[in-house]
Structure formats: structure tokens, C-alpha cells
């Protein structure tokens, strides 16, 4: 008889975990899936296009009722779990107790609500799920309606852009000096601000919310400096915190999130946790790629296979139509870090790569992001980029091209004798311009021979 697996949370992390699990250990578990929302798993990161009206909800559903039925999953949607009794190995919900042999906690995160007066007024929403999205869409129906988005991060800007597309007058309030400071450097943040402003979104940086004003409904947001911005809708998008209450109450080790090991096991070996609710090696994640990485490892663990999660590098794309923005890795300035920068302000293109010890460690792309995943790949792989440094920022289309020769200026011609001799090819010939031509002519060196060798780069840095 199959073990009983209970999964708390029907979001993207658990959805991916189940897919892996059914693939690797079909029939191993009898699965019961609890979800607080009254619906199955959908692609939460695609809520922004739903908000903006560019997609319908149906288009972002990832697991249909049919899929759950096919996999034999018992769905308990709209039924929040209120307690985990580890001693008795049951979870408790309004409908009673459900026993488990193994438990997955995938409770995700909750939006952070800034503790200012008026935060509970009707018209103040967060941006987390379909209900939030629908509430905002409803608010935007009223002609002339005004929205204030608190938070100029990824989520806040997507909300602002969506609301603007829905016809609202939108103001973004951001505490920090530039937008998306976790993903962007000031230059790219500035370009982004200019772009969003050109779409009619008002942006205030260094804006600290003092109070949300209103009696029966939100009316305005007042800043520390006394500025009051009228609002019919206030969307708080200042961050998330892992949803750990259930796990903490059950006595599992929790820090900022539920502490897991590299196998995604909590302090109770029968319980694994995945997604935004966990803390792995001190890090909590809020992006989708790490969730998928975790889901894969957790599925292995539950299948009895060996796998380890080593943490994720994160890459971000802003999903605002017409704004191409990508950031990955670490791009804070620091000693030993070198920048490669490409700026085309007229076209709104800005690219910055951060190099440390001949490795790409961070990338910010604005305006042209097609090469984002290629850069991200190099960041993850720790590729030694010294040989392609000169063309790196121009992307894969320029990597590994034919070697370029400054002697082109004087049209060095091939030195046929060096090829005719059939005496093998000396190092000296390799380094002479004429020699290289001859070798290329003979097909003796492949394309992509680097112009700048690692040694030359090292010497250059030393100098």
C-alpha cells in the first residue's frame, strides 16, 4: 500500500514537486493536496499580464482538475490547514484531521504590510494571488480611478504598469533612491524610471509612507514630508515574508523561513518544505527559478533518491510589456569587481556585466535582454570569460567568431612557406600575425582563437 503524502499549499513549488514525484516514483504515494485558495495551481508570476488584461486567468492555469484526477491527487482546495500534529502525524483543517506518512510544507509567503495607520482601510490591497488581482481589476473599472503603489520593486512595478494599462492614474512610491534596487544599478533604475514615466506613471523615489488616509475607504497616501497623494486604490508591494506560522507552531526549526537542509528536509525528517516559505543556508527566495530547483530536489528526497540543493543564483525579468529588463547575479560594486558597460541611451539600452576573477558574477540588461539567459548560464557555470571578454557583452552572436587580426590594417598576407613546410607548427608561428594567417589558411587553427590570452589579461591587470 502506498504511503500517504500530504502537501500543504497548492502553489508553483508544490506543483512542480508533484510533477517530478509522479515521474520518478509513480504510485509510491497517495497524495492529498491542501490549498488555501479555492483553486488549483496556476502560474503566479503571470498574474501581471492578467492584471494588465493581456492574458486571461485560464491561460495561466498550470494544473487542471483533469490533471489532478489523472494523477489520483485528492484535492482539498479552499481548505486551509490550521495545525500540524507531528506526534500523531496528522494535519488539521476545518474538515478534520488528515494523517500522513510524509508531509510537504509549501505554504509560500505572505505580502509584507507596512505598519502605518490606515493599512486596514478598504481599498488597500496586496498583490499576491488571483483574488488580489481581481480586486485591483475591479477598482480600475471606475473611470478616473487613481492608484498608489507602494513599492518600486519587481512586483510593485508590474502592478503599476498593469493598473496603468487598465486606465488608472498610477503613482509609485519607493523608499529607495532608485527603482528595483535589488536587481538594478542606479543607471538602469534611472532608465526604467524614465520609461515608466513615459507611460504616464508617476514615480516618487525616496518616498516614505507616513499614513494611509481615509475614513470608510482609502482616500490618499500621506508621505513623511507631508505630501498627500489622492488614491482610490493602494497596492502594497513592499516585499514578502515566508509563511512559517504553521511550521513554527508545530515546533519545526524556523528562522526567517522554515529551515531545511540540502535535501529540503525540515528538522522533522518526515517533513520536507519547498518554496518561498523555506530558508536554505540562511537564504530565502522569492523568485520562481529557485523554487523549481528546490522542488526537484524535494521530489528526489521523497522518492528515496539522493539529491542536494546547493542554493540558486537568481535572475529576474520584469514582466512589463515593452520594458525589457533582466538582472542576474551579484552586481554590487566591490573591490576586485570589474564592470563592462554598454550604453545606448537613445535606444534605451543599458548593459552592465560584473566580472570578478575572470568570472561573470552579475549582469544587468535593460532594453535588450535576449542574451539574458546566456549571461545567466555563464554566471551559474562560472565560465572563465577572459578569452571572450572583449565581445562578451555583445552576447553569443559575437562569441567564438573568427579571430580578428589588427594586421588587417596592413593586409598581412599569408606566409605560404610556413605552411608548405609540413614541419609542424611552432609556437612562434602561432603568435606571429603572418603565421596565424598562414595557419588559418591551412585550417590548422580553428575559429575562435582568442586575440587576448588569459596570460595577457592577467599581465594587463597586474599592470
Amino acid at each position, binding site marked *: 500500500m502506498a504511503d500517504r503524502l500530504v502537501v500543504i499549499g497548492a502553489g508553483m513549488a508544490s506543483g512542480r514537486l508533484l510533477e517530478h514525484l509522479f515521474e520518478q516514483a509513480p504510485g509510491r504515494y497517495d497524495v492529498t493536496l491542501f490549498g488555501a485558495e479555492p483553486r488549483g495551481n496556476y502560474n503566479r508570476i503571470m498574474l501581471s499580464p492578467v492584471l494588465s488584461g493581456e492574458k486571461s486567468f485560464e491561460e495561466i492555469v498550470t494544473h487542471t482538475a483533469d490533471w489532478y484526477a489523472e494523477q489520483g491527487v485528492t484535492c482539498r482546495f479552499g481548505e486551509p490547514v490550521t495545525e500540524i500534529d507531528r506526534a500523531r502525524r496528522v494535519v488539521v483543517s476545518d474538515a478534520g484531521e488528515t494523517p500522513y506518512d510524509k508531509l510537504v510544507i509549501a505554504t509560500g509567503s505572505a505580502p509584507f504590510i507596512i505598519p502605518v495607520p490606515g493599512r486596514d482601510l478598504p481599498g488597500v490591497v496586496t498583490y499576491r494571488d488571483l483574488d488580489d488581482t481581481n480586486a485591483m481589476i475591479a477598482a480600475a473599472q471606475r473611470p478616473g480611478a487613481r492608484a498608489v503603489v507602494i513599492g518600486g520593486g519587481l512586483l510593485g512595478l508590474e502592478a503599476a504598469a498593469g493598473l496603468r494599462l487598465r486606465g488608472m492614474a498610477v503613482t509609485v512610491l519607493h523608499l529607495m533612491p532608485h527603482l528595483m534596487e535589488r536587481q538594478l544599478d542606479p543607471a538602469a533604475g534611472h532608465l526604467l524610471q524614465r520609461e515608466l514615466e513615459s507611460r504616464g506613471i508617476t514615480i516618487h523615489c525616496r518616498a516614505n509612507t507616513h499614513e494611509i488616509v481615509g475614513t470608510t475607504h482609502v482616500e490618499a497616501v500621506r508621505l513623511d514630508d507631508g505630501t498627500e497623494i489622492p488614491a482610490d486604490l493602494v497596492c502594497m508591494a513592499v516585499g514578502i515574508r515566508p509563511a512559517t506560522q504553521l511550521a513554527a507552531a508545530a515546533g519545526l526549526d524556523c528562522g526567517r523561513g522554515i529551515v531545511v537542509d540540502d535535501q529540503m528536509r525540515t528538522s522533522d525528517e518526515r517533513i520536507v518544505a519547498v518554496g518561498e516559505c523555506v530558508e536554505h543556508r540562511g537564504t530565502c527566495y522569492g523568485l520562481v527559478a529557485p523554487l523549481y530547483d528546490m522542488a526537484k530536489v524535494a521530489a528526489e528526497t521523497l522518492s528515496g533518491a539522493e539529491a542536494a540543493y546547493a542554493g540558486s543564483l537568481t535572475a529576474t525579468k520584469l514582466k512589463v510589456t515593452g520594458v525589457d529588463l533582466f538582472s542576474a547575479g551579484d552586481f554590487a560594486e566591490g573591490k576586485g569587481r570589474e564592470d563592462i558597460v554598454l550604453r545606448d541611451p537613445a535606444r534605451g539600452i543599458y548593459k552592465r556585466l560584473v*566580472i570578478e576573477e575572470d568570472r561573470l558574477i552579475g549582469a544587468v540588461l535593460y532594453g535588450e535582454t535576449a542574451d539574458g539567459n546566456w549571461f545567466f548560464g555563464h554566471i551559474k557555470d562560472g565560465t572563465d570569460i577572459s578569452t571572450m571578454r572583449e*565581445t562578451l557583452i555583445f552576447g553569443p552572436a559575437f562569441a567564438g567568431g573568427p579571430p580578428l587580426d589588427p594586421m588587417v590594417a596592413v593586409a598581412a598576407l599569408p606566409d605560404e612557406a610556413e605552411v608548405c613546410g609540413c614541419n609542424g607548427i611552432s609556437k612562434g608561428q602561432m603568435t606571429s600575425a603572418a603565421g596565424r594567417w598562414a595557419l588559418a589558411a591551412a585550417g590548422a587553427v580553428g575559429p575562435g582563437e582568442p586575440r587576448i590570452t588569459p596570460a595577457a589579461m592577467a599581465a594587463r591587470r597586474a599592470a
Partner: protein
Amino acid sequence: MKAERPGVCTACPYCGVGCGVVARPDGQGGATIEGDPNHPANYGRLCSKGSALGETIDMEGRLLAPRIHGQETDWNEAIALVAERFSAAIAEHGPDSVAFYVSGQLLTEDYYVANKLMKGFIGSANIDTNSRLCMASTVAGHKRAFGADMVPGCYEDLEEADLVVLVGSNLAWCHPVLYQRLAAARAARPEMKVVVVDPRRTATSELADLELRLAPGSDVALFNYLLARIDSTGSTDAAYLLAHVSGAAEALEAARKTDLTDAMARTGLSEHEIETFCDLFLRHEKTVTVFSQGVNQSAAGTDKVNAIINCHLATGRIGRPGMGPFSVTGQPNAMGGREVGGLANMLAAHLAIENADHRAAVQDFWDAPRICEKPGLKAVDLFRACADGQIKALWIMSTNPAVSLPQAGDVAEAIRACPFVVVSDILAETDTTACADVLLPATAWGEKSGTVTNSERCISRQRPFLPAPGLARPDWQIIADVATAMGWGAAFDFESPAAVFREHAALSGVAAGLGALFDITGLADLDEAAYEALAPIQWPVPAGRTPGGRFFAAGGFATPHGRGVMRAVEHRPPAAAPSPDYPLILNTGRVRDHWHTMTRTAKSARLSRHMAEPYAEIHPADAASLGIQPASLVTLESPYASIVVRALITDRGQPGTVFVPMHWTSQWAKRALVDTLVGAALDPYSGQPESKAQPVRLRPFDAAWYGLAIGQRELRPETDYWARARLGTGWQAEVAGGIVPTDWGVFARGLLEAHAAGQVVEFADAAAGLYRLAVIEDQRLVGAFFAGPSPVAVSRGVLAEALGAPWTGPDLLAGRAGAGRPDPGATVCGCFSVGVNTILAAIQEDGLADLDAICRALQAGTNCGSCRPEIAALLSAARPRMAAE
């Protein structure tokens, strides 16, 4: 269909092959250029330079009005001043206090009038020409051997020979059409053998069955040994020697001093190489020995010429089809200049200054008040005399001695030291016009009318097809105007170039009467219409007899005794030997697509692409020991000056030698005047300077950064190093500096003269020292700059195409073609812009295995054909590899 515009048949203004071209003016100041299918020099072929003539006739930089001390003026004032100052100098200091320095670029008529004024009316022989730098040793050698400056054969001889020996001649690049005729003949008769005697491997070597890379300056040893072998094998033509040649015994005795050991030691060649060469020569009666600047530009140049001629006289191989010594000249009208006597040691019409009868005859013919009594100052001495203060008034016509003469830096100083300097030129700004008091605007090729004589004695008309711009006048007219203002109007009352030519032809009759072989009396009665219609014709053109033909097969030399002369010559090493301070030997020469001081060819973007920068060919062994990296910059120093050029590391030259092209002037590079390095060692007989064996030293140029700029606006860099060239839509500049600019953006904008309104795209990798910038105006790329700590590795072809084109995005700053857009590589075929990578792809990927197949597939080499040796070299480099696979 558009009616074809009428074509004007004229002659190419570049090398001494003297090709006929058909120019079709477009009515807007330009013209299309084709080879003249009826011209006997080229039968329709043209080289890369000739093909691009249409790109060089714009008005940019033209001198359009006379200038006195930089101020424009009219002709009356300018002519009056020139006449007054020359007359005053002559009155006060005598005739030898004035001088003309003229050019193989002048037409025969210009030359004639200048020579007449100086020798017959001023009464001095202080008229010399830049042909001195080119051909003087051949002139002297010819005169010593033949009694006259005479090329005995014709171009067909190269085609009919069974053995062609090319000595000191990169024919493929310097006389491309003649090379193509030779290559075609060899292709038709594969049994024909070609020997290339040159210290350097060149494009011409591609044709060689035997390459003799001899030590610089050792030609006499090689040919003396050959002469000794001719003698020892009994291969002399005893009958010919007996009937027609003097001096054989002495010459053979001198030659026998060079035994094999000696020949090997002098030339550095192996026994096998030397004996193979001798055997080829002995086996093939139909042998032509072509020689050029590698022979002439030497302190032993005249002896080298005679060493070669000796071998032909000894074997009687002269003046018969497919046989003879054959000098090819560098300039379109060096021969015409020699015919009128436009050299300081000639009189006129092949007559001798030293001969009183000759002097009297010419004076009489000219009805001249006086006649020069003795040879004048030859080029190098002429400018020394300027420096010494002996020359009070100097007139330079149509040449750029501040660039081209040895110790050119001193020459510029010498010109400035002369109290009164006149320069007639077509351009306002050259290194020489910068030294002038008076500038006189001359008409250019395409505007002027006259004749030129090529290397096979063929006289061709240069015909105008464009109007004279501004106030420009033909040189003959300017000179005649000055002569008139000096009081000799009656003798210079020429109404047309035809009138000048008639007088020149009539004078040749006087010369013929005195035994000269130069006789064109058959042309002395040409009326204006006949002159206008004159078809190319080989001299002699004696009145009433068949023109043309070869000389000396049956003797008939122009010496007093009518015999040819074998001269006893001995090997002399170059005048200056390498020393620990100056251990390398500098050789100078031409590149394929530039000519002389680039005043014309640099206007053409197509021509500028082949070699866009001055460079030094350095042997890998020398580069390694001196720490010189490929494509870095190097400083060359001689005791006289230093230059900075790009290092091209190649084993084309020999260890211990460096080759630098001679073309780049101060208009095109910061400091690349190679002739400033060359000492003024002269051939004792010809006065020709030794331009190919100057001891120098070499060291890396200490550049902190290297850069490349392209711009639609003219680039005028002020960096420590720069060299610039034209692009189709603007300019290119290679730059470098000793100190990295503090703000790259400011520096680059300044260099590109970027307007504040332009959009700027930047790439920066500060840690790697890389900076790049593009300037976009009206959605088009108007400039770009690339800099880095090492020589800039970008695809110049890709950038050249992007300049002026719609801006496609910041990827341009990658400086190379992206995926799917192949980089054509360095231009090999200038006519169709075919790059080296494209050709290699055709060979390697498309499997094209013979030259014609490649040329057909890519069009490369199918117009002028100048690049065919280079394509052949690429093919032969790839072939063994393919065979091995």
C-alpha cells in the same frame, strides 16, 4: 538604354608600363575609366590603381589659384614675381644660382619647355628630376654600354622569352599589367621559366620557378659569376663580340675574380641556387633580364646595370625577339623626360652636355642666347646646394621632394633655406608646398594635353577629358609664361602642346644628325589635328622610314665607335654597413595600391583598403630578439631621423633586414617619412641615391594605448602616433598614444568632431582598458572609436561598411560581424572588395582548387588582376594541407 558617353583615349599617369585608358567623363567632374583595348602596352588591361583613376580626380585639396606667401593672387602678379626673382638671382649670382627640380609626372612637352628655359636661356644645367631617384643608374648604365639611354627591346620580348629573369623588381605590384602579360604568356607556355632575384619574397615570387633571395646589394657578384660561367662554358657569342662589342676582355677578367665561393659569400646564396640560375641562363638563348629599382636605387646601381647588360652583350642576346636587358621605369614619363634631356647631366634629345658640337647644335636650334657649359646639380646635390645657400631661386614642379628624397627631413630644411621657392602642383597641401613662397596651380592628369613615353619607347598621347579647374594652367604654359616675362618671349611663343612637340621632334632630327638614336622626325610635322589623333607609336620614328623596332641585334650602338661596351665591374657592398648601433638594413619600396607620395591614390578608398597604414616588414627572428609584438608599433631610427610604423612580422624579408613602403607622407601619417631615414649615399656615375640599404635600428614604440577611429568628418588626430586613410564614406585613422587620456568620452568626441546633438553609444571595460564609442546623427553612424591597451582587433571591413549607414544598434561596438554575417577579412581584391576570408572559404569550404575557378566564383581578380598573385599565394598555402587530408 543610355547612350554610351564618348570615350577619350589617354594614358595612365602611374607606372612606366604606360597603359592606355579610355576615360568617359560623366559630365559632373568625374569619369569612368577602362583599359584601352587598342593600346599596345596593355590591350585593355588595367591594374588596381589604373582602374581606380576615376576615384582620384575630385577637386578635393586642389590648388586653384596662384598664391604668394599663402595669399591667393592672379597669374600676372605671380608670373611677374617668379620672373623677377629668377632674373634677379641670375643677374646677381649667375645662372647656376637658380634651379628647377622637375618630375617624371610631367608630360614631354612640359619637360621640353623647362629644359629649354634652363639650359638654353638661363644657361645652366641645374634642372634635375625625380627620375634621378628612380632611373638614373639605368640611364648611366645604358649610356656606358650603348652610348645612349636606350631600352633595346619591347614588351613582347617578355612574352616571347623562354627565360625571364626579374632582378630587383616586384613586377606584380609595381608594373602589374606587364606582370600579367608575363603571367599569361607563362600560362600559355608552361615551359617558360621565371627567375626572381630579390632579397625579399614578394608577390612576384609567386611566378618564380627559382627564387634567389640574395643579400642586399650583391647583384654584381651574382651577374659577374654568371658572366664568368658564360665565359668558362664557352657560351659567349664570339662573332657578336668581335663585330659589335668592346671591353669584353676587361669585363671578363673582372668577372673571373668572382669565383663560386666568392659569389656564395657575397650573395648568401647556395651553390645549388647559383648554379641552377647559371644553368637556366646558359640553356635559354631567349632570355630577358628585367630590372628595376632594386638595381637602380643603389650606390652601385650603374655597375649593377652594366653587370646585367654584360651578360646579354657577351651572349649576343640583345635586340632580338625574346632577348635583352630590359629596364622597367617607375614613372609614366621618366622616358619622355630622358628624351628631352631633362636631367642635369643630359643636354637635350639624347645629346651630351660635354660635347661642344652638341651644345652648339642645340643652341643654334633654339636660337638661344647661351647654352649650359657643364652638367648641373643632380637631385641630392641640388638640395645640398640649397642648404648651402648656393641656390637663390628654386622651382619645384609636380613632385614632392620633401618626402621622396633621401634625408627628406634635411631636404625640407634645405628648401626652406632657399630664399625664393616656387612650387607648381595640382594640390595645395603637400609636404613640399608647405615650404614654398609661391604656389602655381597646374592642371592635372585628365585636364592636360601632351605625350608620355613608356618603358618600351612607346609615345602615347595624354588627352584632356575634364576642364581645367579654377585658374590652373598646363605646366608648359606656366614655364613659357615665366620665360616670356624673363624676356624670351619669341623662343617660348608656343600656341599649343602640339607646337612644343613639333619643336621637340624637329630637334631630334638635329640629334639624329649627330648620331643619336633618338629620332622622331617623322612626327615633326604633325598639325594640330594629327597630333590630337596621334596613336601610340614606338620610337624611333625617322621621317620616311618604318618606326619602332628593336636595337643592337646587329650592333649600331650610339657610341663614337659604334660598338657596344662591356664594362669591367666589381662588387661593391652598400655604402653604409650595418653596425652595432644600426644593425639592421632598411629596404624601401612600393605597395600594390599606392603610388609615390599618395597625393592621388590616397583619395581612393578602394586603393587605401589594401594597405591602410605604413608598416615595417620585420623578420620573426629580429622581432623576437627585439621584443616586438605583431601589429604593435615600432620606431625605426637611422643617424638622420626616426619614424614610427606598424610592425608586420613576416619572413618575407631576411633576418637583419626591414622593409618599409615609401608612400606615407605627413598628410597621411604622423611620422612615417621613410626617406628621412635614408642617407644620401650616391652612385658615383648616376648620382642616384641608395634607397634600399640604409642601416637602421628598431625598437618597440612605447604605446600605452592603441586606437582606431572611423568618421564621416575628416579625422585629424593629434596623437603620438596616427595614420589615416580614406574610406568610401569618410575617414579611418589608426592612432596610439603614450599616455591614456583622462576621459575617453571627451577624447573620442573631440577626435570624431562629434556634434553635441549627436547620440552617443559607449562601451567601457575600465579594468581591461577598453573603450569604444559610436556617434549617431540622424539615425546614421557618423563616427566610431575603439581603444585598448593592445593593437585594436576589430574588423575594419565591417566598420567601413557601417560608416554612414543606418544605425543598427550597439552591437556595432563589438567591432566584428556577428553570427551569420561573415567577416570578409582584409581586402585582397580592391576592384570587387573581396576579402581574404571570403577567398579562403572558397578554397577550403567550396573546394575551389585553381586560380581561375576562384576568380570566376568570386569575381576577385577579374578586373585589373593585380591581386591574382596574392590569391595564388593563398591557394598554394592551402593546397598542401588539402593534399594531406
